[in-house]
């Protein structure tokens, strides 16, 4: 009796295994083609002097040594990317939460505001928007013409100034807070009203409700957004490429733009692969640290099933 049951069970398991892999296979194929193979190839090339023209020659750790010892541009690009991500992500999330709280009320016209705020996020990735940004903050742009209308003549535009150019690019990222706002808005609506009611019955003040109920209930959302957006912050390219082309004096040279130049302007493919892996390690460290801290501050309502 018992044997029969476990036989049926293992048969069931075998079927599950097959079903699982059948359903997963399209993704698996893409994973191998677009991720796994490229990763292997990329690791290999990162130890070579491959440059598209000559046969790749293995040169050991030379690329990595060069990155960490003599490559000043690498350090600059890393710095730019760090500053970008560290300022952009908290600013955008804070602004998104602020506006989401504002819109999570009962007023007329909420839908319209929500739509208007969201539009920059959906078109923000478009190169057309980068072009607009370039024209607004660049020479002959809106800011310059406004300043001169007030009689202020500046030698450099905000984009021409090494101190402000990156801030302009960060501003463009904050401007696209809409999708985080929508996600916060949805999460806010999911918080059971009974929680707030009982807190109010207990006489809790609104700031206390915010920090004791709203924020804890939002932590899974914040966590998810934080991770995604930091990774996104590290991959900034279009803005850097279109708005300033990394300038002035490399003050907006993002890591991916540098990697791109190494690979496709200098054809330094091996070196570029090494740069890519350094970036992967940096992002991995960030993510692992964030995941490690998860238990301390992220509250999941139900335990989840695994």
């Amino acid at each position, binding site marked *: 009796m018992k044997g029969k049951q476990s036989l049926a069970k293992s048969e069931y398991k075998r079927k599950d295994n097959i*079903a699982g*892999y059948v*359903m*997963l296979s399209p993704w698996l194929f893409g994973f191998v083609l677009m991720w796994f193979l490229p990763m292997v190839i*990329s690791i290999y*090339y990162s130890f070579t002097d491959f440059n598209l023209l000559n046969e790749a020659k293995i040169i050991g750790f030379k690329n990595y040594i060069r990155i960490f010892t003599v490559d000043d541009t690498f350090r600059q690009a890393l710095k730019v990317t760090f500053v970008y991500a560290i300022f952009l992500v908290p600013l955008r999330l804070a602004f998104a939460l602020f506006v989401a709280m504002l819109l999570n009320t009962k007023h007329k016209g909420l839908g319209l505001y929500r739509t208007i705020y969201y539009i920059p996020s*959906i078109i923000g990735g478009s190169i057309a928007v980068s072009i*607009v940004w370039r024209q607004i903050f660049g020479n002959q742009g809106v800011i310059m013409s406004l300043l001169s209308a007030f009689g202020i003549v500046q030698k450099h535009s905000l984009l021409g100034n090494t101190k402000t150019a990156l801030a302009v690019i960060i501003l463009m990222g904050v401007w696209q807070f809409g999708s985080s706002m929508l996600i916060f808005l949805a999460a806010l609506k999911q918080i059971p009203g009974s929680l707030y009611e009982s807190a109010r019955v207990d006489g809790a003040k609104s700031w206390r409700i915010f920090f004791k109920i709203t924020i804890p209930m939002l932590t899974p959302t914040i966590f998810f957004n934080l991770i995604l957006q930091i990774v996104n912050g590290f991959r900034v390219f279009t803005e850097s490429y279109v708005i300033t082309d990394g300038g002035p004096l490399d003050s907006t040279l993002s890591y991916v733009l540098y990697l791109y130049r190494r690979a496709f302007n200098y054809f330094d493919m091996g070196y*570029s692969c090494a740069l890519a892996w350094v970036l992967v390690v940096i992002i991995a460290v960030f993510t692992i640290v964030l995941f490690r801290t998860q238990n301390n501050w992220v509250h999941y309502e139900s335990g989840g099933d695994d």
Partner: protein
Amino acid sequence: MVGMKKNKLNSVLFHFLSCTVGILMFYPLLWLFASSMKSNETMFKDAYSLIPEVFDIATNYQSAWEGVGGVSFLAFLGNTVFVTVLGMAGCVIISLFAAYAFTRIKFKGSKFWFSCVMVTMMIPSQVMVVPQYIILKKLNLIDTRVALALPWFFGTAFFIFMLVQFFRGVPKDLDEAAEIDGCGRISILFRILVPVVKPALVTASIFAFYWIWQDFFQPLIFMSTPSKYTLSLALNMFLDPNAYNNYGGLFAMSVLSLLPTLIFFIIFQRYLVDGIAMDGIKG
């Protein structure tokens, strides 16, 4: 009475704040639209102005319509639509299957593969672009439109993760009941789960649309023949200082390239907001 007064003040404050934010946010787009109607000669006179001093709509939009590099706007649009539709269809369906497998089937290695999904979410695709270029070159796919859809076609980690989260929110009793009624896996997926997570699927499709439509990095590297360019690349070509000094045309083409995304947004925004609000699951 005092309460009502306070409410009114609150409401005025709310609308004042919301409108200010809204105007500031919309200014760059209004500026683009206004500039696309300014004549090239007066383009940078009072550049901040939203009202063109000299209108030259016809010249600007005609030059945008004619395109750049001898390729018409319509050709660029067609390329973009092709890449987007192909990429989007694959992305959503394949992500859906993967998410189903991860949440509803207990199979060997499922945890391992799910961590692979998470890894691909953490690794910027830009990092893989050199080896991807080399592989696509070996497959003779470099400089083809298919190459632009491929990175999206096999699903993306973001959607798989998102759908997994949604599926976890759907009680398993639902599909267990269906299984007892004799439903197979595919019919459980499409008859029970898909309707429940439909908002999430629509949301995923809309995101996919925008990401692929606006994709710039991979096209920049994979493509070299202007007649196969997408709109992003066409605009980039327009920016080349050696090619043009035609800002009116550039802005007009920017407007034209944003137009489909805005129309798409207006049609689907109801679904988008509903999708994010997850109404289907709460009930």
